[in-house]
């Protein structure tokens, strides 16, 4: 998957109510990525208005402070029925 740019997590805005990170897109809209998806390993933020995507540069442990800021917890691993 080819991304338009790379952006570090510290440069993104975090919305505690939606638990979403965002960053300006050159089209005027914003790239968005949900914190739980990042916790699960996703690192591509997409723009709802155009085809551009960015790669978010972060370490999993970076997310802890944002979970604390939002007063929430990382998702529990999904139990797989035997």
């Amino acid at each position, binding site marked *: 998957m080819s991304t338009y740019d790379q952006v570090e997590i510290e440069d993104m805005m975090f919305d505690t109510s939606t638990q979403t990170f965002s960053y300006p897109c*050159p*089209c005027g809209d914003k790239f968005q990525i949900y914190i739980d998806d990042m916790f699960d390993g996703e690192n591509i933020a997409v723009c709802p208005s155009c*085809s551009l995507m960015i790669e978010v540069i972060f370490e999993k442990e970076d997310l802890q402070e944002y979970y604390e800021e939002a007063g929430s917890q990382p998702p529990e691993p999904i139990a797989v029925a035997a």
Partner: protein
Amino acid sequence: MTKIYALGSNGNYQLGIGHCKDIVEPHLSFDASRGNVKRIACGGNHTMLLLEDGSLYGCGDNSRDQLSPNAGCTHWKEWKSIQNDIFKDVACGWDFTAVINEDDEVLTRGSGLKGELGLGNEQRESKEWKRVMTVSNKSKIFATLHNCVVVQPYLSGSKVYGWGSNTKCQLFEPKCRIISRPELTYESEDVVIDYVAMGKDFLIYVDVRGRIVKATGCLPAAFKAEKWAPIENLLVRCMWTSVHILVTKNSTQDTPKGIYSFGNNSHGQLFDEKELELPLDIKAFTTGSEHGIIGYRTDNADRTVVACWGWGEHGNCGKFKNSDSSNSGTPLNEIFSWAKNVNAENIHLFGGCATTWIAQDE
């Protein structure tokens, strides 16, 4: 008199034409009987227009009070006068607006969560114009997504003050997250800064002789400021993630006339003279967020043409005659032209977030 045409991204009425559909062919946006255009400044989703007589107009997104206290009016669908004051300069960042007024005060409004308003750590949003600082006469203001700079005359040179994000040391070292009040970023008693060209997280200072005198932040790796330092008569423009230098005279053997581009080429942003035939007589040159715009005389001088290249997904590089490559990269694409009786010096080009602006003084 100025006629202003616009095309491109319009989801928040930022083209000022009454609706919010993207535009792929130049559309008359503003017809000014009051005087010529001085500057069009583009934010993420709002646009400001300053005429030579100091009158200021705005359109587009007002959800962060970028244009006026919104009181429920989150969008200006058409151009409206900002207020009756006279302004000397204007610049827009992502969600904020900065001006210099008649009393040489720098004022800001809107939203700046990274210190873009320059009003201190406690004030990251403002519904009204708030005073940042007072500057001397003939100061200029520039902005990009998350930064703002003021260039101020000082002795026989300039002082530059900047604020906003500093995570990439775009203002100065050492790195920090936020500079929430103006801080001195450049000072010289004899070098006069003409403008600061700004990418999304880098700054390039250019003096009145057209020399690159300073470059800071996360610059494209291929761009070497020291290589360019001795060369005069450069015109430097930045997209968010690339640097573009127009050499207008054959200044040295190594750098003949042309456009030299450095940085992100994911969508054909870099001007490649092997693929894009460079018009000989370029009269105007600017950039938007991820596209370039030039105005030139055709080789036989019978027409004046505006053409775009780069990322044109929202129609900002015009309509394509053959295959539509706007999602990937746009070859140099003609979007507008005049017959030969138009004086090319009266054509002014501006670029925003996937928007293209053509102003013609009459």
